[in-house]
């Protein structure tokens, strides 16, 4: 009933917008990373023609990325932070999502509202809140020392000073990352747990499965999409994070890959190296991005079918 040209024409402005302001900028990063540096002004000279590409800066960064060199330490630290934060999100987030999806009956809508509330509170404000809590004399600090958690953490070697959480403690950075990103993990997980048909579980129980086996063989596999989707959804931004460690620590000893990129553009005079790190980071994250886009694509096909 509609003319054939209508829908491509309707998509045109958006597609052109994304081509110019999303795809083209990637090429600008590549051109700068494979370009050269002005010897006097130290500014980046991008190489727009692939024939003039100079791989020198990218290989320079790659050389610093092997074990024993500076970026290797940063890269390993970033992976540690991301993996530990992800584990924390799963350990806290799965029971919460599971409870709200399966057991919260009367309180379900209230809990859902409280669950999405952090989405509407600025990430930076939620980080600022921890400065309030962990500054000298703050409620969080008082709570941690009154309950003995501070001294336990200190004796376990997780923090180097039980009265200073805001000066270069990896523990605080991981705590802040979990706090910051866990809402984005719980919501897709909740959605997939909520979609599970209860009759599958009843069937498993009727056939003699223990509650644990029913969970392990029915609920867990059926929530796999939400679990992996939520995990990828928070892993990607965590790899590019630089503001969380800067706010709750600010020390070079907790610096992540994002901090290196930030330094080269906002602190140092070498955007070419920054662009090279950005390219390598994007290449590394491509696998995760591909996986997530494939799941979205498949989900939207199912909706259409």
């Amino acid at each position: 009933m509609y003319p054939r040209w209508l829908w491509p024409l309707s998509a045109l402005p958006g597609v052109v917008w994304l081509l110019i302001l999303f795809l083209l900028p990637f090429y600008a990063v590549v051109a700068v990373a494979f370009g050269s540096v002005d010897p006097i002004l130290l500014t980046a000279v991008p190489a727009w023609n692939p024939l003039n590409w100079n791989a020198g800066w990218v290989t320079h960064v790659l050389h610093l990325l092997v074990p024993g060199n500076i970026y290797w330490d940063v890269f390993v630290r970033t992976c540690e932070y991301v993996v530990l934060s992800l584990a924390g999100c799963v350990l806290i987030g799965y029971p919460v999502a599971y409870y709200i999806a399966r057991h919260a009956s009367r309180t379900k809508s209230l809990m859902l509202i409280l669950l999405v509330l952090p989405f509407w509170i600025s990430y930076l404000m939620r980080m600022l809140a921890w400065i309030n809590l962990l500054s000298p004399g703050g409620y969080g600090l008082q709570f941690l020392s009154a309950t003995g958690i501070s001294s336990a953490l200190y004796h376990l070697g997780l923090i180097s000073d039980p009265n200073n959480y805001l000066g270069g403690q990896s523990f605080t950075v991981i705590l802040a990352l979990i706090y910051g990103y866990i809402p984005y993990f719980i919501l897709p997980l909740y959605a997939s747990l909520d979609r599970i048909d209860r009759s599958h579980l009843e069937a498993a129980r009727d056939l003699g499965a223990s509650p644990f086996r029913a969970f392990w063989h029915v609920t867990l596999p059926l929530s796999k999409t939400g679990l992996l989707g939520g995990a990828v959804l928070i892993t990607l931004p965590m790899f590019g994070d630089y503001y969380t460690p800067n706010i709750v620590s600010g020390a070079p000893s907790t610096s992540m890959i994002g901090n290196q990129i930030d330094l080269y553009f906002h602190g140092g005079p070498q955007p070419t190296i920054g662009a090279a790190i950005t390219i390598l980071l994007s290449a590394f994250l491509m696998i995760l991005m591909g996986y997530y886009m494939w799941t979205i694509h498949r989900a939207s096909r199912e909706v259409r079918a």
Partner: protein
Amino acid sequence: MSQAVASRPAGESEFGYVRRLRGWLGNPWGKPRFLILVAWGYIVWSIAPVVVAVQFSFNDSRSLSVWHGFTTKWYTSTDPSIDSVLHSAELRGALSQSMKLAGLDVLIATPIGLFLALGLARWRGRGSGASNFLMLFPLVTPEIVMGVSLLLLFSHLLTFVPFGTVAQVLGHVTFSISYVVVILRGRLFSIGRSYEEAAADLGAAPATALYRVLLPLLLPAIVASAAIVFAISIDDFVISQWLSSGANSTTVPIEIYAATRATPQPSTDGIATVIMVITLLSVVAGVLVYRFFTRGESGRGSAVDDVAGFGI
């Protein structure tokens, strides 16, 4: 009797408590008490710090962690030695820049996203698959990568774009479009084509079917996506920071970041509180409008489901 209790070793009674606690938590026939504790514990943990931050925006001292009594001076004071939210040029500038970016973002990204969603949902042909792919990419790209790439684009290629408001709006719209498309596309598929076909069978011209049938059906989702664009634009820190031109294009998140790197004051908590209240009010307004438009619809389609189902 009392002697017997007293003579029981202390360790045994402690063990009894532990066993009773375990029995209470692990009773398979009762409520899942362990899960209840974890779930409510999480919710308190996720919200209490923000409540404390709001509390300290009313602190009668420069301290962010020790309570010295209630005051509203960090919001209203005209004393030049106090950077109050209402009277400090810096904080007011940050507030108005945040609002300006969010407003422009909604005005530009919502229509572009609407047309793109319609096009991508119904266009079958060369380039449609690639366009779909392109649309999903901004959702999964780390913001720092987008920030770096837009910075380099505007400083080396599209040099006529000035840093500051113009560059920031272009950046915000770029990451907002995909959210609008994903939300609207879900609604488009659930509406289906039968209503428009019925309109056409009854003699409506294509333009009439679009305007009088499809648009009203899409309206709730358009409202929902506008509210979400507003909220993510207000929340954005990375893109705004990378594309800012200094003091005159500082947004509230940039202001908070700068303050935490130097010496945050209760007025920092204050400006964060103001922006949070504005966001929450706009979300509540969005939900109310959404409810109004979808009243009478059967099924479980709530705003939360619409958004949650797509993993945003």
